[in-house]
């Protein structure tokens, strides 16, 4: 009987351990290279075969340096799928070891206990950290990582991610059409200029076609990521979005004013979005767009001579493409978002496995990987060592030499970010920041759809829009927090009763065991 009770308690205690999560990662004394380790790397590529090849080559090279580590690659084409799969796998402790992700997503992963590895100790370790003496490759020193980008992975008092690549958004302009409409591009694109030219482009001829392109299709201004659009507009205005503590400020009067303006041009169809119409590149390259805003990481799709395209050859229209920063409210104080993939490590029972993951993550910051990957799109390397290398500066200097590796638009997009790194910003990261970002975009999408469908956008509409969006993205529950650990408040009464009952049962069991034991001793 005693044995049974002990077994039961052991099982129960094991269960408690499981629900608590893993122990916090503890840095091993040394990396045991006599043991074979297998790690999984979940990565994202921009449906770009060259990027896949670079990941595979990086893994091959790393495995040659560390023959005891095997890296399994799993590829995704969007961050959302990675996020969903990670969330699903946290409960079964089958997360990947290394994962390309957004800091916003990491904040959600952090709601589990010890799920994501804090990197501070790993950064600083003399042997295996940045520039570590025992690392088998020429690891970058901490001060060689662009500090602005490195700090994007710091929240809740720790570093949880290292940057992998950085991009921003660019406005790809059909300069030929701007000039045909009688305008001259300013040095810095402003919202007023973009709206004005877009509206002017809507003029239609007697044949029903648009005068500027002679076609029956035209979206003068199209935006790929409307969450970025709203966030950048608010930051440029100095208006509220959220606080670092996770307070939601999005639903303010400035947002409303911006939505009224967007509604005006959405109604005239001078403005549309990717979700409503399709990829900006398809319209731009077919001569059906004047201003197309998309990531600099999508630059190889933009322009008449773009090496990647989805439309057929016969639909291509020849025009001059200019790459400019996103439109601004104050040309003297340009502000644009910093984005791009980061890398986080998931905690495992075996610290050696975590250390192997860290070594691989560090390998992704070496020049071979950084430069090769940056050259696939309008990304820039996140290390100064790569940015200042002869190889990379030579690459940047050769824009336009060909329409493949040295595609002019792609290199101009990369330069745009290099020149504007100090003008970039990131939004605060907290549990719920990913939902807030989605909500920011949804406000624009819903407003544009509404006016296109003949609905009136007025105060009543705005009130409903705010309420519905808060509800849809659960921003009305006060559940967001900067720490990643939500304060759930005092225990509900039912939970208290249950816990007290369990304690009472355990007391009875223990009393029974003790009495029974004494009884046996007497016998």
């Amino acid at each position: 009987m005693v044995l049974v009770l002990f077994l039961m308690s052991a099982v129960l205690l094991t269960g408690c351990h499981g629900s608590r999560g893993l122990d916090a990662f503890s840095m091993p004394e040394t990396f045991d290279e006599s043991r074979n380790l297998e790690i999984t790397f979940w990565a994202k590529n921009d449906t770009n075969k060259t990027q896949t090849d670079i990941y595979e080559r990086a893994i091959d090279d790393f495995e040659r340096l560390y023959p005891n580590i095997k890296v399994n690659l799993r590829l995704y084409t969007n961050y959302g799928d990675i996020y969903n799969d990670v969330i699903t796998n946290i409960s079964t402790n089958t997360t990947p070891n290394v994962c390309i992700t957004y800091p916003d997503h990491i904040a959600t992963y952090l709601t589990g206990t010890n799920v994501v590895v804090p990197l501070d100790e790993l950064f600083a370790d003399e042997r295996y950290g940045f520039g570590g003496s025992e690392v088998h490759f020429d690891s970058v020193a901490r001060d060689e990582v662009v500090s602005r980008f490195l700090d994007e992975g710091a929240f809740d008092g720790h570093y949880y991610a290292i940057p992998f690549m950085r991009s921003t958004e660019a406005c790809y302009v059909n300069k030929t059409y701007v000039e045909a409409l009688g305008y001259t591009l300013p040095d810095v694109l402003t919202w007023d200029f973009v709206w004005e030219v877009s509206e002017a482009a809507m003029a239609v001829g007697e044949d029903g076609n648009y005068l500027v392109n002679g076609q029956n299709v035209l979206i003068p201004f199209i935006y790929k990521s409307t969450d970025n659009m709203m966030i950048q507009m608010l930051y440029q205005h100095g208006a509220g979005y959220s606080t670092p503590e996770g307070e939601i400020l999005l639903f303010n009067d400035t947002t409303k004013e911006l939505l009224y303006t967007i509604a005006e041009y959405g109604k005239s169809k001078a403005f549309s979005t990717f979700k409503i119409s399709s990829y900006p590149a398809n319209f731009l390259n077919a001569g059906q767009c004047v201003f197309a805003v998309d990531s600099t990481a999508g630059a190889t799709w933009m322009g008449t001579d773009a090496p990647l395209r989805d439309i057929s050859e016969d639909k291509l229209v020849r025009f001059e493409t200019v790459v400019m920063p996103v439109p601004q409210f104050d040309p003297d104080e340009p502000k644009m978002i910093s984005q791009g993939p980061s890398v986080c490590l998931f905690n495992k029972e075996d610290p050696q496995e975590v250390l192997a993951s860290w070594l691989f993550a560090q390998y992704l910051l070496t020049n071979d990987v950084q430069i090769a990957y940056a050259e696939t799109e309008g990304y820039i390397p996140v290390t100064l060592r790569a940015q200042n290398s002869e190889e990379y500066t030579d690459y940047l200097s050769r824009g336009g030499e060909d329409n493949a590796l040295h595609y002019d638009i792609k290199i101009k997009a990369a330069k745009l970010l290099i020149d504007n790194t100090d003008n970039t910003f990131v939004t605060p990261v907290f549990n719920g920041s990913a939902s807030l970002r989605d909500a920011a975009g949804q406000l624009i999408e819903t407003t544009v759809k509404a006016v296109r469908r003949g609905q009136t956008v007025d105060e009543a509409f705005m009130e409903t829009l705010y309420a519905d969006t808060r509800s849809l993205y659960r921003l009305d529950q006060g559940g967001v927090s900067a720490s990643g650990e939500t304060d759930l408040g005092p225990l509900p009464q039912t939970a208290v009763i249950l816990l007290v009952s369990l304690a009472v049962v355990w007391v009875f069991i223990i009393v029974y065991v003790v009495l029974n034991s004494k009884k046996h001793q007497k016998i």
Partner: protein
Amino acid sequence: MECRFFLKCIDFCPVVEYNVKVWQSMGILFGFLRETKKRRMKMKKYVALILAFSLTLALAGCGGKDDAGSDVKSEGVMTHAEYMAAAVDEQVVVETYVQAKQSWWDNKATVYTQDKDGAYFIYEMACSEEDYAKLTPGTKIKVTGYKAEWSGEIEIMDATFEIQDGNYVASALDVTNMLGTDELISHQNEYVSFKGMTVEDAGNGSAFMYKWDNSGTDGDDLYFNVSFNGQTYTFTVESHLCDNTTDVYAAVKNLQIGDVVDMEGFLYWYEGVNPHITSVTVK
């Protein structure tokens, strides 16, 4: 009518399946009773009874199988012609029949539907997981949403739906000879077939690629090129519609350049025709 049609009926119609079982039972009875004349007489009665019964069931089955033959639209519901004439962003209400389901995620379903006059692709319609399970091929639904166009694909978005009585599974329309003509787009999203097309190099020296640029892995969309009358077209096995456990996914992975194939699928559009293939047969 083609044999394919009857086979499809057997696949989809439980009543016809019952008839098959009845005939199988009859065969067994025949085996047991063949010795005596008396038994032969008895057998005739059984056969007559069974034939009469199965004929009744078959007629009833046909009625349930294809309600679209008398597909009168309810009040306030558009015909397919009216739907096609509606402007983009206009609210549309249609009664249609589920032909295949592409995906369900976050209480949103993407579905290929069709009535006897044409097809309706419904993108991310509000749908619970429980209701999604009810959307079997043939199920009649009334859909209220907004007409949209995305890269040439005409679809209904932001829709809600209700399940109605009725059942219709479209047979595949052979559009092989319409390839490269303006007529093809009038059958957009319909269940169609392509006959005698030749598999070409997908661009990587193989008969297919994972993703459009060969950047994917097993489980991703399959892209393959097929030609007819000297023109080459890109067809897709859409991995949400037919994942890597399906016969069509395996069949495309086994294709060889030069194979002549018959295919069925949905006439999806993305910057031009981009059929989502559901079956491939090498001839």
